[in-house]
């Protein structure tokens, strides 16, 4: 069914428009361009910010380039402390938690929307409550729990916490998409004698690849920038993440803002790249995904 939908896809025809509509389109483009400039500004600002010293950070206009760019901020960030170790930790905690979260959330959402069982509603409710607790209420209980099972100062405490706290959100996003997927495909698959695993991994997962890309991006950003849990559960320097790089430049009485800017700039680059790659996947939409199934 989905395959036939894709086959019917017609070429886009944007040529026969009245003039009024063209003026409207031009206005729209101007508006879109203005928003684009606004949205790109933060990145440029951050770059400028990272090249300033404290005097300039406060004295110059935020969008002014310092007369003498302080590239040494980057050198400082790169040499002070353990940045390559932090970087490695950030990557692997993020990847592990994202994979685990998206996989588990997809399984749950599939069971909630596609399979037949009685406790669906209460179980969904249980997951949804998960987005409602302020994280600062959870710090002491979680720490004590991890302490009891000897998981403090252990990467698992971070990965499992990230997964648990992002699962509800991820499930909710997936839910909106799963509910709209046509049932014909899997009905046909069941008729063909496919197992549940096959239906899930081979039909549903590929069909939802665009929303998976969406949730991966969201999860990735959250995990990558998280620092409260890392600070609380991890005490060894060798297990900390890039976000401690920021703390490294916050002093008791003074803060090295330029170096913080450089750390922020360094830490945004990897997710910027991954984001650009993944966001192409969303573009393809469901139809492209379903063809593969």
């Amino acid at each position: 069914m989905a395959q036939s939908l894709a086959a019917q896809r017609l070429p886009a025809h944007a040529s026969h428009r009245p003039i009024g509509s063209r003026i409207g389109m031009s206005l729209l483009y101007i508006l879109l361009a203005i928003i684009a400039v606004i949205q790109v500004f933060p990145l440029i600002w951050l770059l400028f910010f990272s090249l300033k010293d404290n005097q300039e950070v406060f004295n110059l206009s935020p969008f002014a380039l310092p007369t003498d760019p302080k590239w040494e901020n980057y050198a400082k960030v790169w040499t002070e402390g353990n940045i390559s170790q932090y970087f490695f930790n950030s990557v692997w905690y993020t990847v592990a938690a994202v994979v685990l979260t998206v996989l588990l959330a997809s399984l749950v959402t599939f069971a909630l929307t596609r399979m037949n069982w009685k406790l669906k509603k209460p179980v969904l409710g249980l997951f949804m409550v998960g987005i409602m607790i302020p994280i600062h209420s959870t710090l002491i209980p979680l720490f004590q729990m991890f302490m009891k099972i000897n998981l403090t100062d252990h990467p698992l405490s971070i990965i499992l916490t990230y997964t648990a706290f992002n699962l509800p959100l991820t499930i909710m996003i997936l839910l909106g998409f799963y509910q709209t997927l046509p049932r014909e495909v899997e009905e046909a698959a069941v008729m063909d004698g496919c197992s549940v695993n096959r239906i899930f991994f081979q039909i549903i997962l590929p069909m939802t690849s665009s929303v998976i890309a969406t949730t991966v991006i969201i999860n990735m950003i959250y995990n990558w920038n998280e620092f409260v849990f890392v600070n609380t559960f991890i005490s060894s320097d060798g297990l900390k993440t890039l976000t401690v790089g920021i703390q490294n430049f916050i002093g008791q009485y003074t803060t090295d803002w330029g170096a913080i800017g450089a750390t922020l700039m360094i830490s945004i680059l990897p997710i910027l790249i991954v984001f650009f790659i993944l966001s192409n996947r969303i573009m393809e939409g469901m139809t492209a995904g379903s063809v593969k199934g």
Partner: protein
Amino acid sequence: MDKVMSNKKMIALYVLPALALVLALIYVPIVLTGYYGLMKWDGIGAMEFIGLDNYSRLVQDSAFWQSAYHAFLLAAFSALSLIAYLAIALVLSGEIKGANLLRKIYLIPMLLSSVAIAQLWLKIYHPTNGVINSLLASLGFTGTIEWLADTKIVLLAIFIPIIWQYAGFYILIYYAALKNIPTSLVEAARIDGANPLQIAFRVKIPLILSVTKVTIVLAIVGSLKYFDLIYVMTDGGPNGASEVMASYMYHQAFRSFDFGYGSAIGFFLLLICLVVTWLIRKLTDSEEIQYS
């Protein structure tokens, strides 16, 4: 069909791992928070059971209700802003040249951490050489607007970056949902002579209704327990003028060493979120529409 899709073992296998994680790492803290909320505890010494005293204090605490009011205002603003995000996503998902690039650019701010966003907006709001006041000065405006120091405007000033921070998140979700609509449905409407606006309102929006409902819940609950930028940019000040429930809870538990009371606030916040979510679901309850 029924048989395969009703396999109890498979259901358990699919649901239990995630459920176990959530129960252990979210529900245990929730239960303990509820428990601490019944205690007089500074988080250091011995606990003393005081029953519902913390809650009766909460009900009479005008500072708490002020923070709750602020959080609800934020929730209202966030929910309203969803309309703008949906509009942007609709435009981007349409036949726009360069939509692919625009979409990526639009989402860039969402990659920034709260620390970076806070610093950016502190510079924008700076009373003397901030972006806004410099702009106003160049337009001939002589007064100085103290964006983050004036108790009358600080709340509005802090809402703008918060809402802007999440723009990418919602645009991304809407965009992915819109892209998931089979092209054939849109084409069919077009062949029937529908203009882009009609297609948006009659075809696209109804088809992503379930996603929209989810975003409403996320925006409102997310706002009710919002913390990050407020903590960095104003710390709830001046004198509580920008305090929200989560920051109030943090201040009580971690600054005033009143962990029992802080826990009671945390638990109450959870209850508020539950009630609000239930209300939203009641209000938006309708049949789900599937592509077919």
